[in-house]
């Protein structure tokens, strides 16, 4: 049986594969925006420094993963490694897969660096994080870069109740790095039927504290900021402005209008969800990107007492899990910048019918907060707006619906 040595193979490939030097690469990167530069070095080499804008696909996974990133076989590709040898073999493999415009970078990353061209150290996940988020990072739509976006993401939950509980757990599990929770309440035994972040031993503890403990046990990457307060017209801007996205899990109309208006005025996307008995609604209000807001859909609140609350009408235990999880999903999509958000669409779920449906919601050009001639330009008195006399706050709280905050 005939064989060739490694050196002979390299010499053979040098004759067959197109090579460019680092100076040609620098020119190409400057002028050819279609060029994809693939770095095939191992992960530990890559973390020491890389050419800005390069795609890291280590030699061992190149053939298995390249199509996820570069589908077009005619796309111009430059392959680099440390010294320009492994990139020859990688280029050969790409040619065998049908890529027609492949070049190997002679001299590789070391040549690039020694010639004085700029490089940077990529921000990367730790080994523990790489393990924890491996089901995310293997998907090209997320990747290590997407996971870093999630870790940098800041999501505020209004309420750590039925919707806030599953949302917090899934956001934390997915590695959303900062989760804020606004909740004034303490855990009650009647919460445990659906508010899955709290446990029996948490009864009488502030929900913010109970939720922080649960998140810390699940994922130490996540920083929890507890706001143990009612969200009000006075503090809403201060709190919301610290975050990228707001998830609404409040249980009363004044808070819903307040959070909507504050998000519109600050330009923050609001992932809204609500539940009653066997039904749920979820959507995204993202007025900074032209979508409608809560007031476009519901211009005025119902009079107090007209719409029963979950405390009065009940709510099936699993339902908030479905709606709250949908809200977490929408927030994650927004952070990653993937897919179509629910902006402009109201997703309805009926648990008894076992049915999801979608309705279109349109921007109201006359909307008082996000329309063409807004009349609400600062936060107002939302109890008054919802027809709740201040003097009856305590009684209204007792009824469970017309609460000022949760």
């Amino acid at each position, binding site marked *: 049986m005939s064989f060739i040595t490694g050196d002979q193979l390299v010499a053979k490939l040098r004759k067959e594969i197109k090579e460019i030097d680092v100076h040609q690469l620098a020119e190409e990167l400057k002028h050819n925006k279609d060029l994809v530069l693939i770095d095939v070095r191992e992960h530990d080499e890559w973390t020491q420094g890389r050419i800005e804008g390069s795609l890291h696909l280590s030699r061992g996974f190149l053939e298995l993963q390249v199509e996820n990133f570069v589908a077009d076989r005619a796309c111009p590709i430059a392959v680099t490694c440390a010294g320009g040898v492994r990139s020859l073999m990688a280029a050969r493999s790409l040619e065998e897969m049908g890529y027609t415009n492949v070049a190997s970078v002679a001299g590789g990353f070391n040549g690039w660096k020694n010639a004085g061209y700029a490089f940077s150290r990529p921000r990367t996940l730790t080994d523990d994080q790489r393990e924890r988020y491996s089901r995310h990072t293997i998907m090209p739509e997320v990747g290590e870069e997407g996971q870093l976006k999630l870790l940098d993401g800041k999501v505020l939950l*209004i*309420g750590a*109740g*039925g*919707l*806030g509980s599953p949302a917090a757990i899934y956001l934390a599990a997915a590695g959303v790095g900062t989760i804020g929770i606004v909740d004034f309440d303490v855990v009650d035994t009647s*919460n445990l039927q659906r*508010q899955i972040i709290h446990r029996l031993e948490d009864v009488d503890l502030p929900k913010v504290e109970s939720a922080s403990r649960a998140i810390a046990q699940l994922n130490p990457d996540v920083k929890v900021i507890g706001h143990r307060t009612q969200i009000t017209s006075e503090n809403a801007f201060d709190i919301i402005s610290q975050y990228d996205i707001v998830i*609404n*899990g*409040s*249980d*009363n*109309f004044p808070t*819903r209008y307040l959070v909507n208006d504050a998000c519109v005025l600050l330009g923050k996307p609001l992932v809204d*969800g*609500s*539940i*009653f*008995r*066997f*039904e749920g*609604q979820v959507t995204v209000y993202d007025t900074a990107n032209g979508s409608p807001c809560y007031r476009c*859909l*519901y*211009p*005025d*609140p*119902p009079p107090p007492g007209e*719409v*029963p*609350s*979950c405390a009065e*009408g009940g*709510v099936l235990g699993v339902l*908030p899990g479905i709606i709250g999880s949908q809200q977490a999903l929408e927030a994650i999509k927004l952070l990653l910048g993937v897919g179509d958000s629910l902006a402009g669409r*109201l997703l*309805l779920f*009926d648990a*008894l*019918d076992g049915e999801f*449906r*979608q*309705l*279109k*919601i*349109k921007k*109201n050009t006359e909307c008082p907060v996000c329309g063409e001639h807004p009349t609400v330009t600062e936060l107002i008195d939302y109890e008054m707006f919802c027809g709740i006399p201040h003097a009856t706050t305590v009684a209204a709280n007792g009824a469970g*619906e017309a609460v000022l905050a*949760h």
Partner: protein
Amino acid sequence: MTQVRIPSPLRRYTDGQSKVETNGATIQELIDNLEAQHPGVKSRLCDENGQIKRYVNVFVNDEEIRTLQGVETPITEKDEVSIIPAMAGGK
């Protein structure tokens, strides 16, 4: 007969049914017929002037009637009408 989706808070008027069938060439007629079949429903949907309350949305298929012709929006037997009230529950 046009199918009408009834939300949870109004199902006490429809014997718990989530879908009912009724007639009407417009939303207005449909609501009047719905009221005849299930007394009490109309006052939950409409104000004293017969307009849909501003915290209730009525959709014909997936379009909200304020973006169509309001209560005058014509409907056929093939359409599906959905009543979507504001819900505040989250806890």
